[in-house]
């Protein structure tokens, strides 16, 4: 009986030693992973294919700890104020062996079809969006650490404040002149065509014109548009329908009221 007691006692002590040593070695290994140059990010690039914008962020993880890192998962989800998903991306790295470095890309996809169908206001209005990001990994196949964060980030609309102004009618030339403008608050360069269809106050189409648009990030776009309009159809006021088309997306119509100046 004494041998049984002794054996059970030693077994219990061995397990206690393992339980105490494991977190200590985990702590020491984790401390190495909190050093600079363990995780790094590269330059973000964007590309377009299949109706989606791909925002690609290269990164690396240098595992200088004592244990393997497994099931490394980075997930980002961008939602609007109503909880609708605008963009999402997930990157899974099955294993990073201790002492090794791994290079990978975190890709976030923005569906432009969804954006123009359900969330057209994002193309025209600045707003705040909710970013849910989570990063998780497993230490030595035992300890799982997950980091979750919720941030509110600003969204800059590519066609912010799209409007028309300063409409004048030249009786001699029979030409309506107006100015179309917007501010590109997005980080991308906008390139496409802006179509303007003018209606008088009797809802008759009195003219239309299409112009090329190119606006870099942060740039104000302002262009004069001349449209031939028959005198008999012109009225003091009416409305215009604006359509914007680019390789990546199309949006419209945006309706704006007009009134002749002078």
């Amino acid at each position, binding site marked *: 009986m004494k041998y049984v007691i002794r054996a*059970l006692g030693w*077994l219990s002590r061995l397990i*206690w030693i393992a*339980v105490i040593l494991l977190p200590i070695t985990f702590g020491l290994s984790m401390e190495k992973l909190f050093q600079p140059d363990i995780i790094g990010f590269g330059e973000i690039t964007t590309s377009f294919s299949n109706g989606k914008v791909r925002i690609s962020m290269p990164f690396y993880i240098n595992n200088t700890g004592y244990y393997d890192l497994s099931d490394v998962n980075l997930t980002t989800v961008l939602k609007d104020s109503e909880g609708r998903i605008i963009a999402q991306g997930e990157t899974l790295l099955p294993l990073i062996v201790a002492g090794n470095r791994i290079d990978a890309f975190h890709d976030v996809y923005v569906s432009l079809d969804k954006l123009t169908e359900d969330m057209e206001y994002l193309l025209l209005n600045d707003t705040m969006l909710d970013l849910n990001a989570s990063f998780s990994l497993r230490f030595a196949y035992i*300890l799982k*650490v997950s980091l*979750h964060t919720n941030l509110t980030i600003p969204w800059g609309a590519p066609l912010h404040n799209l409007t028309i102004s300063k409409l004048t009618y030249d009786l001699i030339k029979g030409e309506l002149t107006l100015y179309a403008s917007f501010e590109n608050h997005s980080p991308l360069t906008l390139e496409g065509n802006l179509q303007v269809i003018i209606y008088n106050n009797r809802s008759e189409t009195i003219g239309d014109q299409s112009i090329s648009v190119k606006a870099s990030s942060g740039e104000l776009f302002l262009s004069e548009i001349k449209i031939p309009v028959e005198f008999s159809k012109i009225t003091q006021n009416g409305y215009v329908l604006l359509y914007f088309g680019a390789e990546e997306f199309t949006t419209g119509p945006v309706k704006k009221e007009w009134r002749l100046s002078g």
Partner: protein
Amino acid sequence: MGEVEITECKNVIKKLIPRVLKAVFWCLLIGVGLLLLKQFLSLFFFNFYPESQKLFEIFAWTIVFFAFLIKLSEGTIFKYAFMIGRSFFLILYFIYATNGGVLTVEASEFFQATGMHIQLEFTPLVVLLVLSSLLTMVKDVVAAVNFLNETSA
């Protein structure tokens, strides 16, 4: 009270005082060790996970309490009963204090970021802790049986 009874009382007190002093001394040693551990943990761990400070205090006082009882009851069957009780408490405590091995900590202040929390899943470690306490409990039961055998023989 008769003279015999007074003498018996004095004998009991004479036997009890050394035991109590021994138990108090042992508790002081354990208490100092736990205090040093608390100072070490308060350097970083308690700030990171504030609830752990209260849990540690409960753990520390219970260990000291059981240590006193076990030392006081040495040489009796009650010693093993208290040892089994301590193991049982540790099993329940580890499961409760670690939330079954899943802890979520609000880390906004720690990382100076809003809305951030960290989740740790260490269920295998908790299983090892519980297993160790179970083995200790079994050992104490066997030791109690052995004690009874020896004292009745």
